[in-house]
């Protein structure tokens, strides 16, 4: 197991390098360049200024040389400076990560707290009224474009009812408020984006849970548990749920990269100052160092997410052990 884990850990390095190289090349073969995007057709800005800009950020060098320069900095954990404002990419990412994590972890917790019980109850009362209603709602959740849902939430709860603020994370006047009022304000600002973010995943996770519980309930050891005269609650929540949650854990593990990269739409709609928006803005502005920073971080989180999902799977199910050939 230890050897396997070490091997898996080490595998992350070449994969990260390979993906970073592909990302770098793809970025540079796309038509257009940062100077053109930045200065466009601005008559106030001279052609020399564009050349100076390229020189200043090594963009006049061949692509492979640029990649080597990037790599040299990267091994020292230096992502370079943004082409937009010259600030260190590390600093920009660090500034945006808390907002994304706050939004995504809150959504994740809510998804988990709602989806798992709904999935379990649906499975246990399969075909009943609750199951049918939940199924209908979940299919609506699947089918509904989430950006559309976001706009509907904004229109109804934000504009018509005026219950919640429709964009931003902290109001500008927050610093003139006390601590408790600030916290309340933050929670208030989170309601609509968290609802919109959670809704789509809620459907898939509760479906996974439902299917998984139904499958596990057919296993012989559940029959055995029932035969021993255990209460139905004990059978479901102690015996069945542990195994039923295995695929759910895998799905949760794989949602880790989405913490960073999956928030492009919501963060833009709700003006949420997170990583997704940073990545989106970087792509729109051809801000290569930031794209690389966000890209490499997302890749890293994806690889770690898969790795964690594997480990959690093994922890949850003692029958699964890695690196041993029976």
């Amino acid at each position, binding site marked *: 197991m230890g050897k396997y884990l070490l091997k898996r850990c080490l595998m992350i390095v070449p994969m990260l390098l390979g993906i970073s190289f592909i990302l770098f090349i793809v970025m540079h073969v*796309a*038509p*257009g*360049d940062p100077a*053109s*995007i*930045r*200065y*466009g*057709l*601005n*008559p*106030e*800005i*001279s*052609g*020399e*200024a*564009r*050349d*100076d*800009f390229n020189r*200043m950020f090594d963009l006049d060098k061949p692509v492979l040389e640029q990649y080597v320069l990037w790599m040299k900095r990267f091994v020292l954990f230096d992502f370079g*400076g943004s082409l*937009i*404002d*010259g*600030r260190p990419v590390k600093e*920009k990412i660090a*500034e*945006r990560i808390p*907002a994304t994590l706050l939004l995504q972890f809150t959504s994740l917790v809510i998804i988990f707290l709602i989806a798992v019980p709904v999935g379990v109850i649906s499975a246990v009362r399969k075909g009943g009224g609750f199951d049918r209603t939940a199924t209908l709602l979940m299919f609506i959740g699947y089918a509904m474009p989430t950006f559309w849902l976001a*706009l509907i939430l*904004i*229109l109804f709860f*934000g*504009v018509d009812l*005026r219950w919640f*603020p*429709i*964009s*931003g*994370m*902290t109001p*500008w*006047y927050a*610093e*003139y408020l006390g601590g408790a009022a600030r916290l309340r304000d933050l929670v208030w600002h989170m309601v609509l984006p968290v609802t919109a973010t959670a809704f789509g995943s809620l459907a898939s996770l509760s479906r996974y849970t439902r299917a998984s519980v139904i499958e596990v309930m057919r296993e012989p050891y559940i029959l055995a548990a029932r035969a021993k005269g255990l209460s139905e609650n004990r059978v479901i929540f102690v015996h069945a749920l542990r195994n039923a949650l295995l695929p759910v854990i895998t799905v949760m593990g794989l949602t880790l990269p989405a913490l960073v990269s999956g928030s492009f739409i919501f963060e*833009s*709609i*709700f*003006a949420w*100052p*997170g990583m997704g*928006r*940073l990545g989106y*803005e970087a792509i729109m502005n*051809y801000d290569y160092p930031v794209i690389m920073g966000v890209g490499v971080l997302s890749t890293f989180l994806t690889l770690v997410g898969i790795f964690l999902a594997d480990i959690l799977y093994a922890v949850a199910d003692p029958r699964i052990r890695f690196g041993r050939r029976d």
Partner: protein
Amino acid sequence: MLPFFYADAATASRTPRDAYVSAGTGDARILIPFLADDVASSSICGMVYNGLTKVDKDLTVVPDLAESWVVSADGLSITFKLRDGVKWHDGRPFSANDVKFTFETILDPATGCPYTGAYKDIKSIKVEDSRTITFEYAAPYAPALLKLGMGIIPEHIFSEVGDMRSSPHARDPIGTGPYKFIRWRTGEYILLEANTEYFGGCPGIKRYVYRIIPDESVQFLELITESIDSMDLNPYQYVYRSGGDSFKRRINKYKYLAHAYTYVGYNLRDPLFSDRNVRIALSLAINRGNIIDSVLLGQGERCDGPFIKGTAYYDDNVEEYVYDPDKAKRLLMNAGWADVDNDGVLEKDGMEFHVRLITNQGNQVREDVATMIQSDWAAIGIKTDIQVVAWAAFLDQFVKGGKFQAVLLGWTLPADPDPYAVWHSSSAGENGLNLISYSDPEVDRLIEEGRREFDPARRGEIYRAIHSRIHDAAPYTFLFYPYAEPAINSRFNGIRPEPAGISYNFVEWYVDDNKVKYAF
């Protein structure tokens, strides 16, 4: 009587109060005026810093940090007398050394200022005394008066800074302007507070907030819910979404000609457009009135030249190309184009009159205009392919190096009319903005003369002559000037739209006691 009363009230009530919350789609990038090359950064810098000069409501250059100036008879030197008693936001006195430091920093190649083109003719900057400074130029340069309106930065803050961009003051500016910087929460908002000691008079609004809301439709909803106080409406929002009583009661709409125009440019290196009569025919065939009515919903005006309409530089006497498809057909026939095979498309020497019109993606107005032009040209026998290309590819693969036939684009017009970058023949080429390779020695001469001429009346004559010649040659079909249509919460008083727009007198805006929204 009413405007006078308002103006009087504005100057009388100098206790700043309330907050003005504006919004933009993008965050600012850097708050050093000569490194700011985006709208958000420039507008914040405009509140925090002052230049030597500025433009007034009529776009005339007037003193700002300067009290007055004298241009030498040969036009080679400009001496500015500076205002007395001006202080930086940290309380230190402003002096001529700050001005010298600012422009020397701009001219230092290590600074990486994108605007150096406007200052390259400065030969020397001499501080005569703490309130007098002289700029010596290698050649007379009339736009200098406006270009020297660039925001002045404090020497005592930046003199020890190596890289301006990484300085903490790039995000925490200290200026002399009407507003002091308070906080920048990246991606969320920038907060400024009134400078009660501002030399131009204490602003009437206590706080200026710039919020970042990337989605324009969400911005509009924030305007309706009054979480923001202003935004620029698009024609659809102006005409259809803001007519209700509830909107009108709470929000005022304004309208004035934007300093920008949209045009079709013909690549003059393409033989198809070498004949002036053909270009005129193409202009005559486009129904501009129809375009303005249906695409802009009437929210724009015809454009017939490359300068701001209503200024002394715009020649009102040019004979506009009024929509006349029959005349267009006749001109094309005289130029040898005829529908020989009766397929509805004109031919000449066995070649069809086939135009590829390109424009950039992401601008629905341009895409719609292109479709209308396609239809108008089809009516006189011209086949048009429209190509809508993503901005990056549009610049890289088509515009750069002039690899296009006809282009549908727009220009923003700065307050100074100097059209060198777009219309001088030396601006044609790989990096130049004379995209269509327009070349007229007489226009070149006039442009150069206009740059040397400081007398506003004479400059007016020169630019009207340029306008007239460009119009005669018809290298563009000038289409329209759109209206700028800001909507502002009705609690703000003192707003007076002028050719310069509405924000030129922001320090004079105020809120009546009973309407204050943010009382802290």
